[in-house]
């Protein structure tokens, strides 16, 4: 059995409104990814040479961090389905902690690039690299804010096994943030 995020009615987990937001976000990221991919097709050498300056270990580490944070969120949802608010809060805190680790790693990466004199105007590759990863960075922050709001409500006993749509809503958004990075990492850091 999978860990269900929702009941068996076939509905999307969480509030439907968040899914409108999620689909809109995915569309924007999708366009961004394809713009990068086709810009690369016209500047293959430039993109390949510039990509060598990226820290692939940081990119891979951040992928593992986001996957793990998503897993923690799954555990938080499972906990509230078991009517265990305390455990739900702990898993959410762990997920937010992993989000913080992502931000710290990314800030070190940004600092490294800026100290090397790299900016948006360096070349087309770095324009995409910096804007794409910063755009995603902002989504991680928003995801953490949403998870924190869910955590505080869970801590005050605001959710139960019978009523936890807010937890599922926050979880769905956080998984979207993870999903986008799963594509961004190979696209920007690996494919050459």
């Amino acid at each position, binding site marked *: *059995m*999978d*860990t*269900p*995020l*929702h009941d*068996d009615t*076939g*509905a*999307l*987990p969480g509030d439907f409104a968040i899914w409108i937001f999620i*689909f809109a976000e*995915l569309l924007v990221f*999708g366009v961004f*990814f*394809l713009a990068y*991919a*086709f810009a*690369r*097709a*016209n500047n*293959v050498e430039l993109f390949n040479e510039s990509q060598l300056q990226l820290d*692939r*270990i940081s*990119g*891979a580490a951040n*992928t*593992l961090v986001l*996957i*793990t944070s*998503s*897993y923690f*969120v*799954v*555990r938080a*949802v*499972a*906990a509230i*389905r*078991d009517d265990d608010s305390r455990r739900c809060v702990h898993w959410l805190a762990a997920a937010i902690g992993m989000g913080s680790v992502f931000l710290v790693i990314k800030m070190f990466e940004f600092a490294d690039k800026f100290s090397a004199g790299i900016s948006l105007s360096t070349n087309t590759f770095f324009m995409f690299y910096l804007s794409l990863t910063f755009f995603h960075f902002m989504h991680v922050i928003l995801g953490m804010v949403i998870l924190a709001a869910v955590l505080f409500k869970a801590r005050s006993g605001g959710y139960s096994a019978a009523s936890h749509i807010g937890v*599922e809503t926050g*979880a*769905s958004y956080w*998984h*979207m943030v*993870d*999903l986008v990075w*799963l*594509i961004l*990492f*190979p*696209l920007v*850091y*690996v*494919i*050459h």
Partner: protein
Amino acid sequence: MSTSRLIRPCTAVWLLLVILTGVTYLVGQAGLSGMAVVAFVLITTLFKSQMVVDHFMGLKRARPFWRGLLFGYLLIVCGMIGVAYYVGLTH
């Protein structure tokens, strides 16, 4: 249904995602390139993404339309990245 039974498959999914991320990283570190390598990386990415959609987001239990919509999105994005890579090779 016990919690441990519910959680265990998700832990397996997490482990699989970790392993596949390691494989993708190693492909990059090895400096491998070419259409076959990129196809492998993109199929791995598609598979990983669908695992997140199905098992983490929980869409395996949602109506097939929603799951299909997200799979279609992932297929188009990964497929078009592959097409763009091919265009780059032929330039």
